[in-house]
């Protein structure tokens, strides 16, 4: 097919007069059954490069994409153009997915979008193997995810690589990404193999205004945002480094009457969907999020992206800021950096990214002796689920463990004749990541054009400077604190107490409150001193803070009984603390909640599943009738996974307690239940 012929068809189906040159280069190669890796910035029109050939081929084009929202959007666009397309995902019902697969089998679809994780789904695989299922082309979207050198490697992409390698010669394959360094590009090309041709466009985003603001404290970031956020037009995203900070920043904006909401991986799916939709409809000035938000947001008019925490590499950064200004209109990109403390988090990610070797060995030994699922391995090794996941992904990559599918369950098997664990590759990767973080720090320090810096890093040679960044404009942005703003922030921080959300299903548990986060301020240190360094009772300022938290959350509410969680190892600290609380609030205190059997300290148990087992039926009230029909305030020092409060709440509800609310000194972040 000539370009002219193709463009005639393009106009009749898609309504465009012509292709960009790079688009046609890609399409021409695909039509000839070649393999292409396309690296182009957001907004280039990468999708058309496969959507057009898909309409010309006989059979179904399968598109692997990790972005569900994007797939939904693309499918809708295709359907509007009259191109039969659909996608299967975990968000559909089984019947809907079955229907889609059925349509593809019967030649009723031209494009079928699939999440890579679906390669583990037996049903769709059964169908795609059917000889009547005519496959025309395979597309791998966000192809940088197949590279461990990339910034967000997705383990299920490994299966895609194998698949692509198994596809015959002269079968068209397109891999696309908006972010790939030379190293990632080489890696993708090697992995996909079979004479793949790389086509790279320039990565300059001419509408992004890049700024860096150097600060001396977290407070300064909050002050600057309070003074300036409303001055930026439109809605945007603020990325923080931790889940706690998403909440604190969002509450701070709420306090300032700025419409904001926090978003992170621990939020339930329904709420996440609502927030995503709210963002699309500009219901918020900003969404404060960890990097959990983004993969899946296709909003063309995100007007600003702010990072309160420096990312681990310029690739991460380019990817995250790339979500701004897809419509091509001016957008603002701001990075805060506090040289005194902001290195800690990225370094801990890099250094703590991989579990210790002995934990790998533990998993290998376990899998060697028994064929287990993820749960089984977590239980048998007493490792955190996240760690087991990381370890398994590495072991699968190294060919030591294989993932088998039994019904719909995954079982892990040791592979006979497997090689020894190769830790050298981990070390190489760690060093590469440290280098990339150094480059990120160079981005902060550079006095040259920032866009050029990013493009250079990504292997794109930019002929001239962007003319828009703070360095090009020679305009250094600084924080100018005012007393008024500082006072507001102080007031906010003193009165901000984390809410303890508890599972209310089948119990009379109610949300409670903590005086602080464990890691924020010096609360954690004070607790540690008392508990593990013979520091005596919890200090009185903790008592005052906790009482303040109580009043802010419960107001003047009265509780019939104060109970406290019986200790495993820290003696009478909680008991004494509960006594003081009960006295100050003038509630009745009971010492009758006891352990009915010895439990291990929850702290030493790594896995959430075992934590639950450790506590099951572990508590007893000496006089079971004592709390019938009464409300209970439950005191403890630390709230981690919430498993303890949940177990006690369940037990007390059975005994007739009408309400059980936790009052805790500190809440930790990131329990794995």
């Amino acid at each position, binding site marked *: 097919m000539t370009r002219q012929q193709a463009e005639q068809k393009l106009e009749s189906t898609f309504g465009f007069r012509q292709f960009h040159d790079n688009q046609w280069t890609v399409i021409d190669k695909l039509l000839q059954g070649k393999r292409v890796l396309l690296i182009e910035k957001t907004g280039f029109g990468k999708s058309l490069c496969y959507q057009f050939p898909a309409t010309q081929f006989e059979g179904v084009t399968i598109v692997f994409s990790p972005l569900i929202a994007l797939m939904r959007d693309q499918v809708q666009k295709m359907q509007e153009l009259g191109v039969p397309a659909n996608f299967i995902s975990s968000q559909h019902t089984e019947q809907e997915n079955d229907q889609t697969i059925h349509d593809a089998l019967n030649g009723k679809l031209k494009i079928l979008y699939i999440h890579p994780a679906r*390669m583990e789904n037996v049903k769709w*695989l059964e169908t*795609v*193997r*059917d*000889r009547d*299922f*005519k*496959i025309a082309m*395979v597309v791998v979207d966000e192809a940088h995810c197949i590279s461990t050198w990339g910034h967000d490697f997705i383990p299920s992409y490994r*299966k895609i690589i*194998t*698949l692509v*390698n*198994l*596809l*015959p*010669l*002269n*079968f068209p394959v397109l891999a696309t990404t908006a972010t790939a360094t030379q190293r990632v590009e080489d890696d993708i090309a090697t992995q996909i193999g*079979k004479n793949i041709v790389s086509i790279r466009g320039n990565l300059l985003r001419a509408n992004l205004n890049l700024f860096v603001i150097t600060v001396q404290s977290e407070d300064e970031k909050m002050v600057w945002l309070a003074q300036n956020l409303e001055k930026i037009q439109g809605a945007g995203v603020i990325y923080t480094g931790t889940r706690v900070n998403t909440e604190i920043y969002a509450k701070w904006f709420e306090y300032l009457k700025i419409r904001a909401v926090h978003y992170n991986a621990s939020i339930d799916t329904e709420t996440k969907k609502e927030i995503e939709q709210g963002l699309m409809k500009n219901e918020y000035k900003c969404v404060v999020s960890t990097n959990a938000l983004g993969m899946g947001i296709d909003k063309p008019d995100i007007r600003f992206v702010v990072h309160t925490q420096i990312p681990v590499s310029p690739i991460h950064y380019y990817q995250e800021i790339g979500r701004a200004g897809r419509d091509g209109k001016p957008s603002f990109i701001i990075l805060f950096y506090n040289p005194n403390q902001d290195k800690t988090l990225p370094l801990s990610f890099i250094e703590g990214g991989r579990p210790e070797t002995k934990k790998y060995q533990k998993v290998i030994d376990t899998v*060697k*002796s*028994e*064929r287990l699922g993820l749960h089984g391995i977590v239980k048998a090794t007493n490792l955190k689920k996240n760690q087991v996941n990381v370890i398994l992904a590495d072991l699968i990559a190294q060919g030591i463990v*294989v*993932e*088998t*599918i*039994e019904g719909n369950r995954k079982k892990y*098997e*040791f*592979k*006979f*004749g497997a090689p020894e664990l190769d830790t050298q590759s981990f070390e190489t990767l760690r060093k590469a990541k440290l280098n990339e973080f150094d480059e990120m720090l160079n981005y902060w320090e550079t006095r040259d054009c920032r866009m050029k810096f990013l493009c250079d890093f990504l292997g794109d040679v930019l002929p001239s400077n962007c003319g828009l960044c703070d360095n090009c404009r020679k305009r250094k942005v600084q924080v100018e604190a005012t007393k008024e703003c500082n006072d507001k922030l102080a007031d906010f921080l003193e009165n901000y107490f984390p809410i303890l959300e508890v599972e209310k299903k089948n119990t009379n548990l109610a949300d409670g409150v903590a005086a602080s986060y464990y890691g924020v301020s010096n609360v954690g240190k004070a607790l540690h001193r008392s508990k593990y360094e013979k520091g005596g009772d919890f200090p009185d300022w903790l008592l005052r803070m906790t009482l303040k938290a109580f009043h802010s959350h419960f107001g003047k509410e009265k509780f019939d009984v104060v109970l406290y969680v019986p200790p495993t190892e820290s003696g009478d600290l909680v008991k004494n603390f509960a006594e003081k609380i009960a006295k100050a609030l003038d509630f009745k205190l009971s010492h009758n909640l006891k352990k009915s059997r010895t439990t291990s300290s929850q702290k030493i148990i790594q896995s959430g599943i075992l934590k639950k087992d450790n506590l099951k039926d572990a508590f007893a009230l000496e006089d079971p009738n004592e709390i019938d029909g009464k409300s209970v305030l439950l005191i403890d020092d630390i709230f981690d996974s919430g498993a303890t409060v949940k177990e006690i709440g369940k037990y007390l509800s059975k005994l007739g307690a009408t309400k059980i609310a936790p009052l805790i000194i500190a809440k930790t972040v990131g329990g794995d239940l």
Partner: protein
Amino acid sequence: MTQLSEVPYWITLANLPKWGTEKINRLVVKIVHDNRMALEAFFQSEDEWKDKFSLSDAEISDLQNAKSELPNHAFLAEDMLSQGFEVVPINSPEYSKTLKANLKLKAPTLLYVKGNKQILQENSIAIVGSRDADEISLQFADHVAQKASQQYKVVVSGFAKGVDKQALDSAILHKGQSIIVLPQGIMTFGSGIKRYYKEITHGDVLVVSTFHPKAAWSAGLAMARNPIIYALASEIFVAQSSESGGTWAGVIDGFRKGRTIFVRKPNPDENNANLLLIAKGAKAVDFEGNIIEDANVAENTEKPVEAAEKNGMDEVLSLLEKQILTPKQILEKLSLGMTDKELAKKLKALPNIQTIKKSNKIHYFIKQDSPTLFAME
């Protein structure tokens, strides 16, 4: 190890509809041996199929159809390989030399395996017998498997009830190595892999299938698997055979192929066909599997009449090796004391008997083993 990208091509070739193993293998020989080509290159050289590979138009059309299934087989191969299954094609140094020597061009084009492939290279024995074997036969299987394990010989088992399972379990108990030859596709054997997980991961058991990885168990596949068991073994021990069924048919087939077969000499009170097999040329062995030089079978043979009848069947077989005949024609040449219908029934029960319809009558024949075209080590 077979190159990853070749796997879907092997699956596609091995599962060519209606071609039959021998025809497929002949093509494989032309590709990988005569022309030293990878399958991927072969499938890319469609324009040479006619001249270089002397393929007919019908064959080319079959191959073109098969080619269009390559992407589908890529999906199958990914699923299979990622779950730890492997394939061993007939030209691989990892392929069982015993199997190739015994079956020649009829050897399966592709083995689907899980476990320690090195087992395919070891000395091997098969201990076969009825599914409902007597206790004494099971004990015999146990003894022979134990002895084999002590001598580092691999026990080949068809994973059927009775003698097969006994042989496998004894080999495992005595820390020997075994091959499980499946009557089904390898990806449908989840429960067995779960059960023998430790042995597989420790390298003591290799699971082998010669069928499409997703094929469900069937009686047909179970029958088709039997010759693979015999052919994978260097030595064949019969624990117990009746006068029909898989064991009997397998041994008779083995005789025709010139294989030495060891049969347990039964006690006088046993009711089975072991003596009959010994009379027909099998080597008698004692309860420990040792050869009894002077088995003195004739005196102990309790059913001389039937033996004669069986010998009659052997005559039939040697007749059919040379000609294609209807049962009626056979009876004209040999007096067997049975009707043509009875003979037809008996013929159908035998393995490797093929039929062809000529002038509306069913003719029977045995296809000769073809000389090998493989470079055998």
